[in-house]
Each structure stands twice: as structure tokens, then as C-alpha cells.
């Protein structure tokens, strides 16, 4: 049983089709990446997936069809989005942000929330240093760490990450991808949307390449990394940018 099976997903904003007839899947323990240039429909795919924008097509999460999806219901089932703009609670403390990530578990009176808080603090020691600070006062990299940490507090069974490297310094990007590598080793399935194709393919098991809302290529991440078309379209320029 796949963690996530998406079939014929179409996302439309008025007359504009942002995503057209896209099918893909994520297996247990797997990191899958959607790469492609700006405007390829990567973010729209994630938003349609969690029900934040209207989408046609079928989405099955852990074998269950999800016709009427909402982000809050999916989050309760362990499918958690880390959005591009992070969407933190700026005027609440770092620790409150993290604890609210476990809101559903708290409502269900689940145990282990404290232990997971400690775990997130060991993953991101900087959040521990800043635990009483307002989330809105932190740097971009720290906010990204907090957004990932908040999602981890829900004990995700599938993590959707939207451009975690966006607007961050290369050193921070490296740090965040190291953490993602750690999560992969823990067996948490991840669907990663990235413009930084080299970093994303370096981490992922498989990848899908999107262009103008359509799937143009798919395959094992290692193969994509050496595919001449991918090299030319994304890695040539992006690779230099990432190293700059």
C-alpha cells in the first residue's frame, strides 16, 4: 500500500490550469521530490493535495480515498504540510508554536508529546535556545526550522515540504537538508517540492519533473541527476546558484 497515490490531479485558478492531469505516488519510507522551474505548478500541487485550493482527480492517503480533504483533517491523520511561507504563529513563543503542532495529539490525550518536544530540540538546538522568543522575531532559517519542527510535533506519517530552501543562505540550506536526511533515515516519508534540484535529487529516492503544470519526466533520483535534459534545464544554472 502506498502512502500517497495521486491520480489525474488538475488544479485550476479561474481559466488558468496550474496543474494538468498529474499522477504520482509516495511509498513507505521514501523521499520523493517534485522539481521544476518557477510556475511549474509544484506549490499548486501541494495546495490541491491538502484541499487548500479546489482540485480534480483522486487522492488516496494510506489506502483511503480523500474526496473532501481539509488541511486540519489531514493533519489529524498525520499528513502534514510545511508551507512555502511557513505560516508560523508570529506573536506566540517558539515553544508554543511547537506544542500547537501537536494540537490534535493533545486533544486525543496521546502520550509522548513532551518526549517529541525534546526530540525536536535535539534536531534543532537553536530552537531550544530561542524557546521563549516570539516566532516572528527569528531569522528566516530559524523560522524554517521551526516550521519543520512544528510539523514533526504532529508525528507525521507523510511530510509535505514546500521549498524549504527558499530565500535561505547556502549554509542554512545544507543544515536543513542534513536534518531532512536524518528524518529519511528514521523512515518518515517525505514529498519534497524544490527549485534547488541538485539538493533535492541528492536527498530523494525518486523524482518527478514538472513543467508548465505537466509531468515531463520521472524516475530514480540518481538517474534524473545524470539525465542530460535535467542537467541542462535545471542543474547547470541551479547548481551554480547553489554553490554561489
Amino acid at each position: 500500500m502506498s502512502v500517497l497515490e495521486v491520480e489525474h490531479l488538475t488544479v485550476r485558478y479561474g481559466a488558468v490550469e496550474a496543474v494538468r492531469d498529474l499522477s504520482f505516488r509516495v511509498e513507505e519510507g521514501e523521499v520523493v521530490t517534485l522539481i521544476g522551474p518557477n510556475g511549474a505548478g509544484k506549490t499548486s500541487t501541494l495546495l490541491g493535495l491538502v484541499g487548500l485550493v479546489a482540485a480534480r482527480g483522486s487522492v488516496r492517503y494510506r489506502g483511503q480515498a480523500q474526496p473532501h480533504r481539509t488541511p486540519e483533517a489531514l493533519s489529524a491523520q498525520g499528513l502534514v504540510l510545511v508551507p512555502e511561507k511557513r505560516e508560523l504563529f508570529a506573536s506566540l513563543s517558539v515553544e508554543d508554536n511547537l506544542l500547537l503542532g501537536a494540537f490534535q495529539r493533545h486533544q486525543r490525550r496521546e502520550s509522548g508529546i513532551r518526549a517529541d518536544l525534546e526530540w525536536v530540540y535535539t534536531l534543532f538546538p537553536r530552537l531550544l535556545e530561542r524557546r521563549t522568543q516570539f516566532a516572528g522575531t527569528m531569522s528566516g532559517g530559524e523560522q524554517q526550522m521551526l516550521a519543520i519542527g512544528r510539523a514533526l510535533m504532529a508525528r507525521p506519517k507523510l511530510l509535505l515540504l514546500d521549498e524549504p530552501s527558499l530565500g535561505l543562505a547556502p549554509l542554512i540550506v545544507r543544515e536543513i537538508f542534513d536534518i531532512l536526511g536524518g528524518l529519511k533515515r528514521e523512515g518518515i516519508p517525505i514529498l519534497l517540492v524544490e527549485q534547488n534540484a541538485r539538493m533535492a535529487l541528492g536527498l530523494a529516492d525518486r523524482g518527478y519533473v514538472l513543467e508548465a503544470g505537466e509531468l515531463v519526466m520521472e524516475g530514480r533520483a540518481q538517474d534524473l541527476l545524470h539525465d542530460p535534459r535535467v542537467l541542462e534545464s535545471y542543474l547547470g544554472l541551479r547548481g551554480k546558484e547553489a554553490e554561489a
Partner: protein
Amino acid sequence: MDWTIFSFLLADGLQNGTIYALLALCLVLVFAVTRVILVPLGELLMFAPLSYALLLQGQFPGTAWLSAAMLVAWALLDRNRLRLALALLLLAGVVLGLAYWGSHGAPGWVAWLLAVLIVLPMGPATYRLFFEPLPHGTVLVYLILAVGLHFVYQGLGLVFFGPEQYRPPALLSGEASLGTVPLPRQVFVVYAFAFLAMLGLYLFFTRSLYGKALRACAVNRLGARISGINPSEAGRVAFLLATAIAAVSGMLIAPLVNAAYFMGFLLGLKGFVAGILGGLISYPMAVGGALVVGLLESYSSFTASAYKEAIVFALLLPVLFWRSLRTLELGGEEE
């Protein structure tokens, strides 16, 4: 103006200011979580003491029918969630039963509690029936809806209770004198309740995860949703809290100012002015603003009584002007 008059007016202003403060807190709370400016808050305040007055006269209050009808309509909307729908129908029956008990010889203090309990479901039901079906409404759409509801509820108040004024008995009767100023003992109940309500809200929002979840909904709705917090549920809780505070406030001040179907609107409007002084976001500033409104009203009723409402509402102009300058500086953060 001599010292005696000054202190009389001070006592009066503080008393009214406290009520405005409670209403302003409710308005800020509801607005922060749902973007609804709850104009009918004053009507929800008015329903409770008038229902109490009818219960004491042995009459079945129309508010119980309204409350039960709203619960039944809610159950119909949520008929797909069977357990919730059944619970709502049961609750509607309970409301009618409580009203029957209250109007058939329940002791006075029980009737007091029953009147509050009858009104409570109207808060969350108002949100569920009228605001939740429009999840992407703008502040203006919600405001128009809220003003409409205000007129409907006020009209229903006239139907249920007629145009008479009622003065239900106070919880604490008699007077105490503070220096030269005689104060009804009931005023101290009002202050005690205001203190407890503010302390309770403070603890709820800073200590409990549920309260923090409500704040989270207010600061970032999308962030709340992806964290598994349901904004509709948060909205209903906000409406419930606001209705509870308003209903109890109404019960407490009715013995001091008389209860009538039109009492709510001006109270709510002044609470709104106080809330605006805090930008509808800051709880402490809303409370401070409410005291300013109460005192200003009290002293202007002595020096220029014909203009006392006008002076209070004129206070909005400089504040709105000042706030508009600040919003421009922030680059207009409104959606």
C-alpha cells in the same frame, strides 16, 4: 462641580466602563478569531435578563423557542454527523425543558442560572448558522451580516418581551457607602465578575493549549489549519465565550440600569468604540479604552448631557485618524 458630584460621576463612569470593558473583550476575542464584528452582542446580552424577568413572572420566554429552533437548524445542517446532530436535538429539548422548569416554580437563583443557560447556545449557533457557511467572507460582508442579525434579534426581543422595562432583583441588595458616595452592593458583584472574567480569559489564553490554539487561529489561520486546528470550531468557541460573558454581564447590570429590548445596542456600540480604541486587537487597550469611554460619558452627561452619546462617538474620529496613519506606515497589512 464639587467633590461629591465628581465622585458620583466617577463611580458611575467606572461602573459603565467596566461593562463596556467586558463587551469590548468579547468583541476583540470574536473579531480576532473569526473576523466578525459581533454587532448583535448587545442583543445576546439583553436576552438573558429579560428571559430571567419572564421566568420570575412564571412565563415561558420566547428566547427558549429561539434558542431551541437555532439548535434544531444546526442539527439539520450537520445531519451527516449523526452523533453531533443528535446531541444538538437533545440540547434543544433540554433548553425547552429548562425554560419550562424555570417558569414553573424554580427558586430565584435557579431561574437566574437557567436564563443564562437558555441564551448560551445562541452564540455558537449564530456562528454556525450565519457565518460558517461563508468561510471566505470579507470583514465587510461579515459586518453587514452582523448588522442584519442585530436588527432581527432586537426585533425578536420586542416580540418576546414587549416594550416594557424590567428591573429584575439584584443578587446583592442594599447599598454600601464609599466615603460620601452611596453604591448599590450589586456594583461590587459587577466588579468581581469583571475581574474574574478577565483573569479567566488571561489564564485561558496564556496557560491552556486550547486557548493558545484560539490565538493561533487569530494570528495565522492557515498555520492553524495545517497544525490540525479547525477554525470553525475555534469560531464557535469564541462565540460561546463571548455570549457567556455578555449574558452574565446583562444579568448583573439589569438590576442597576433596567432591562429592555433596546438596552443591548448602545452598550454593545460603546463596547465597540472601546474595542476600536485598542484597534480590535489589543485586550488591555480595549479595557483601557472602555474605562475612558465610561468616564467620558459620565462626565459629559453632567456638563453636556444632551451630547453625551455624541461626545463618546466623536472620540472615534481622532482615534480612527491616528490608526489610519499607523496602518499606512505599516504598508497596509489588511488583506
